[in-house]
């Protein structure tokens, strides 16, 4: 066998703990309802479209309600929908309401950034982070959760709340969340895929700065459509380290830092909300990689190269849903053109090359 990668390295994978889902969920629902009764004026209700489906969000706690929705602001519906919501999210602020979660939890003395738990029957999925706990009932299509919403909340909880429940909910609807970026020009989307550090975020942000429509730089919910594939936005937030902020100085004044986090949070809705897109058709796949060039360049990628580069990073779901993800990605690389996007030092050449990819992808096959 030929081995590639760090010798002896143990991969960090999406392993999870187990928990008593039904009881925990019931206790959380009761706590939310007590918060609602105690603080009716603190309730804020809004509606969104996630993966093309209507989602109802209720938050008890004014400050939390105002802040936690910011990464989803571009998905908000301007009026209450006629059809029933396909997901209800009920959250409360433990600090503002005084209502504690009152469930068994993971050892909170440990510095766990994020713990994912699954019930034995896989009906319930919970995610605990330093100050938040959310739980999804996959049958009832309901998320209930709480947070201690104060100045100590991490940028991750603030910028991409409820990550795991939302990933599972999307995947249950055959809207597969993949680790990729997505931008569009003229209604044609280019999916940036590849390893962390390959340049997906840089490409997405460079394109946004050049006037492209922006869907994501790390999470895209991919759905099969009659004439191809659609990419849905999930979050409009990005986490940027110091190096990234140096490349995009216009984002610095929007950067939110909290605690000892190595990365800053930028809510792109604060930067250029007009450029944030909810959904775009995907017309091509690009694999960024840093190259020792002054200007970026593109070259075609074979379908084999594309699948081997794209597939491993798609495993965002819990075990036994990866099969569906790989099948979708296989169909994606079979039907769409793929390109290596070799990144040069001049970031302005990235959107130029992406425009060329879009133009090339729109040509009829030879």
């Amino acid at each position: 066998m030929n081995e590639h990668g760090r010798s002896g390295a143990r991969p960090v994978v999406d392993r999870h703990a187990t928990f008593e889902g039904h009881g925990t969920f019931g206790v959380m629902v009761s706590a939310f309802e007590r918060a609602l009764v105690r603080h009716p004026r603190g309730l804020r209700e809004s509606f969104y479209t996630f993966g093309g489906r209507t989602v109802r969000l209720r938050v008890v706690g004014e400050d939390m309600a105002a802040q936690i929705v910011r990464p989803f602001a571009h998905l908000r519906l301007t009026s209450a929908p006629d059809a029933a919501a396909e997901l209800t999210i009920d959250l409360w602020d433990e600090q503002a309401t005084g209502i504690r979660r009152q469930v068994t939890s993971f050892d909170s003395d440990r510095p766990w950034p994020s713990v994912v738990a699954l019930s034995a029957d896989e009906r319930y999925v919970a995610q605990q982070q330093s100050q938040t706990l959310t739980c999804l009932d996959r049958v009832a299509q309901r998320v209930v959760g709480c947070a201690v919403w104060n100045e100590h909340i991490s940028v991750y909880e603030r910028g991409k709340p409820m990550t795991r429940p939302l990933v599972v909910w999307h995947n249950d609807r055959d809207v597969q969340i993949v680790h990729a970026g997505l931008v569009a020009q003229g209604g044609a989307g280019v999916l940036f895929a590849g390893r962390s550090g390959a340049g997906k975020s840089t490409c997405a942000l460079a394109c946004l700065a050049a006037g492209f429509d922006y869907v994501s730089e790390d999470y895209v919910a991919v759905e099969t459509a009659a004439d191809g594939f659609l990419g849905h936005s999930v979050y409009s937030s990005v986490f940027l380290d110091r190096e990234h902020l140096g490349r995009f100085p216009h984002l610095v004044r929007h950067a939110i830092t909290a605690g000892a986090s190595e990365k800053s949070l930028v809510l792109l809705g604060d930067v250029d909300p007009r450029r944030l897109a909810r959904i775009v058709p995907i017309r091509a796949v690009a694999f960024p990689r840093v190259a020792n060039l002054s200007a970026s360049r593109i070259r075609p990628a074979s379908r084999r190269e594309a699948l081997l580069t794209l597939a491993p990073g798609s495993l965002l779901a819990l075990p036994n849903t990866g099969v569906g993800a790989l099948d979708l990605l296989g169909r994606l690389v079979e039907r769409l053109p793929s390109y290596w996007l070799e990144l040069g030092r001049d970031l302005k050449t990235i959107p130029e090359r992406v425009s060329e990819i879009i133009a090339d992808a729109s040509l009829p096959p030879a």
Partner: protein
Amino acid sequence: MLEPQTRLQIAKNVAAKVIDGEAVVLNLVNGMYYSTDGVGADAWGLLDRVPTIAEIVDAIVARYAVPHAEARADLEALVGELLQENLVVVAPVGNSTGADPEESPPHKARYQRPVLNSYRDMGDLLAVDPPMPDLEDLSWKESDS
């Protein structure tokens, strides 16, 4: 040494796709991923039928210009690696979907020993959430009421 009549099936929690003659295989439990092309991809493609090792060898010999003994030795080695990596398991009796023996094409393809490539860089790819420490010693704690 594996018996020729050992029947194999794809392990649970393994996802795979064969595209343009290359099989990409992912172990959804431990995050390892693999590729194999040519003879290896063909052999992987046969696993949907829950074949015996002998049936895999016979199918490869029908497609490729290779002596039976050489193909058997190489494929047994490949199967050994697949078993070791928990990508395939020995199937229970009666799981086979059955298949008719393959007919040889008029011109057999050139044979190359199958190679399984493994990749251990999944940790870099799963950086979606903040980095997660090991969960093996996770313990429960009652919260304050």
